[in-house]
């Protein structure tokens, strides 16, 4: 966490430095009135030119440790797959959800993130909504099985993080899923 904050601070300082440089180099032009052409004094020809965009770089974030217990046995099973346009948890995945609910019951201080995913077809934003419906369904079942509300957050990655990069039904079936992540893994 501290590490992340330091990286963030570094990024902000870099950005501020770049912004300072950009300000130096973008000296707006002015228009003046020669004999033959219209006078537009006061209006600058600055417009879009390079050097006005300062970059934020978040490609170097680090994560804290994970409880090794969640990487073994039944808890190593982390994905629930869905049929097209479906959000309910198929029977074959119910033992998986039950195992994770048991862990959360027994470790009330541990937290979990559920990421809902969709296949690539259609609107990215609407797919965020569809993925949310999937992760909300998993969260609901975990809570019914005794996990506490504040232990579980359900979010959506929409179509943005496909497990398979293919463009056919077998790829899409891999991508219609919910993934379970434990504290330290996100």
């Amino acid at each position, binding site marked *: 966490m501290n590490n992340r904050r330091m990286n963030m601070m570094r990024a*902000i300082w*870099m*950005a*501020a430095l*770049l*912004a300072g440089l*950009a*300000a130096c*180099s*973008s*000296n*707006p*032009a002015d*228009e*003046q009135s*020669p004999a*033959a*052409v*219209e006078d*537009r004094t006061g*209006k600058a*020809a*600055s*417009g*879009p*030119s*390079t*050097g*006005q*965009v*300062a*970059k*934020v770089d*978040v*490609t170097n*974030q680090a994560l804290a440790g994970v409880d090794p217990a969640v990487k073994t046995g039944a808890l190593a099973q982390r994905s629930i797959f869905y049929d097209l346009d479906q959000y309910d948890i198929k029977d074959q995945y119910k033992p998986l959800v039950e195992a994770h609910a048991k862990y959360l019951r027994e470790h009330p201080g541990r937290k979990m*993130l559920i*990421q809902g995913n969709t296949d690539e077809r*259609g*609107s*990215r*934003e*609407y797919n*965020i*909504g*569809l*993925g*949310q*419906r999937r992760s*909300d369904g998993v969260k609901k079942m975990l809570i019914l099985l005794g996990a506490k509300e504040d232990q579980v*957050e*359900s*979010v*959506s*990655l*929409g179509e*943005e*993080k496909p497990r398979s990069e293919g463009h056919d039904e077998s790829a899409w079936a891999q991508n219609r899923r919910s993934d379970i*992540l434990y504290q330290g893994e*996100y």
Partner: protein
Amino acid sequence: MNIIAPMRNLLAVLLLCFAAAANAQLSIEITGAGAQRIPIAIVPFAGEGALAQGGASISAIVRADLERSGLLRGIEVPPLAPPPTETSPVNFAEWRARQADALVLGSVAARPDGRFEVRFKLFDTVKSADLSGVAYTLSGAQARATAHRIADFVYEKLTGEKGVFSTRIAYVVKRGNRFELQIADADGAGAETALASFEPIVSPAWSPDGRRLAYVSFQQKKPIVYVQDIAAGKQSVVANFKGSNSAPAWSPDGTKLAVSLSREGGSQIYLINPDGSNVRRLTQSGGIDTEPVFSPDGQTLYFTSDRGGSPQIYRMPASGGEAQRMTFEGSYNVTPRVSPDGRMLAYIRRNNGKFQVATLDLASRQIQVLTDSDKDESPSFAPNGRMILLATISGGRGVLSAVSADGRIKQRLSVAAGDVREPAWGPYTR
């Protein structure tokens, strides 16, 4: 102005820029042009070699801009000696004989202070009329921006419509596992990276003053809405509530954003201030409510909802209240965008498994499908309403494409070695 040009004239406009992020350069190809294009002679400006940036002269950039609009056509100009300038006497009959309906003459002069002076004049050769011109003082680095200003001037004088050559576009490039939110001139030149991340970035939205971008970044492993000050490179969180935070849209006065949040279960539309304060829930449906967008007068919100069983476009008062369904044809109509004059929606509709850009005339309720591609996403109007920028797939890669609101003019913008998506056309800068 009555010379008929071929309907489907294929013009390859070479990429013109050499910014630091050269491998991110967008190149633009015009794949369909208007039926009647105004023939214009843009004579190389006397002395413009002093300002040429990597080979692209001011007159060449002006010509490329005007041709890209699909409404004008540059004619070849033979070498003239001595080179005419904006002060030279114009033989209109001679230019008419060269088939030019309009003529641009100009000059570039170096100033003692190291800056430059660019002057130009536009002439209507048919009416033998001087349509006036402008003089600019600029640094060498502003040559391209100045060329876009000249193109805007010429375009507005000849078409009666404001030009968008000086505006900017934002889009996301995915290269391997790296995502970059980039900003470029409207012609794809001068691309700069505003945000780089190993997690996805979607839904960039320009603030009305063009100084900030709202977007959704997954850099914390979930969708969070941020606003970034473009010049300062300062990213700040707008909405990071439990659950998903997405689909930001600015109100026309820039004082608030409409967003889709799942913090109370399900995806619902809220208003929030750009600093994250004053969160107000607007919709109360059991379905997914997302992709809100304000009408230009700020009074109405259009959005996508599947409350009726399939995703369709609805509208409601911007303060909340009863929603009215807008689309009825087909089972998938999403991503509404309102034209700058408020009269039309552009949106994505699914038809036989193909996702295409369509427009809905809000008065007549007439629908027009504008594209024949099959994976279109994220339409975005140019600030003058003439063109619609969109993302599509071509040759297995994400590319940007643009289509005129009447469907006649088409362009493709692609970037070397990467997927381009999520375009957003920025506002006029003044």
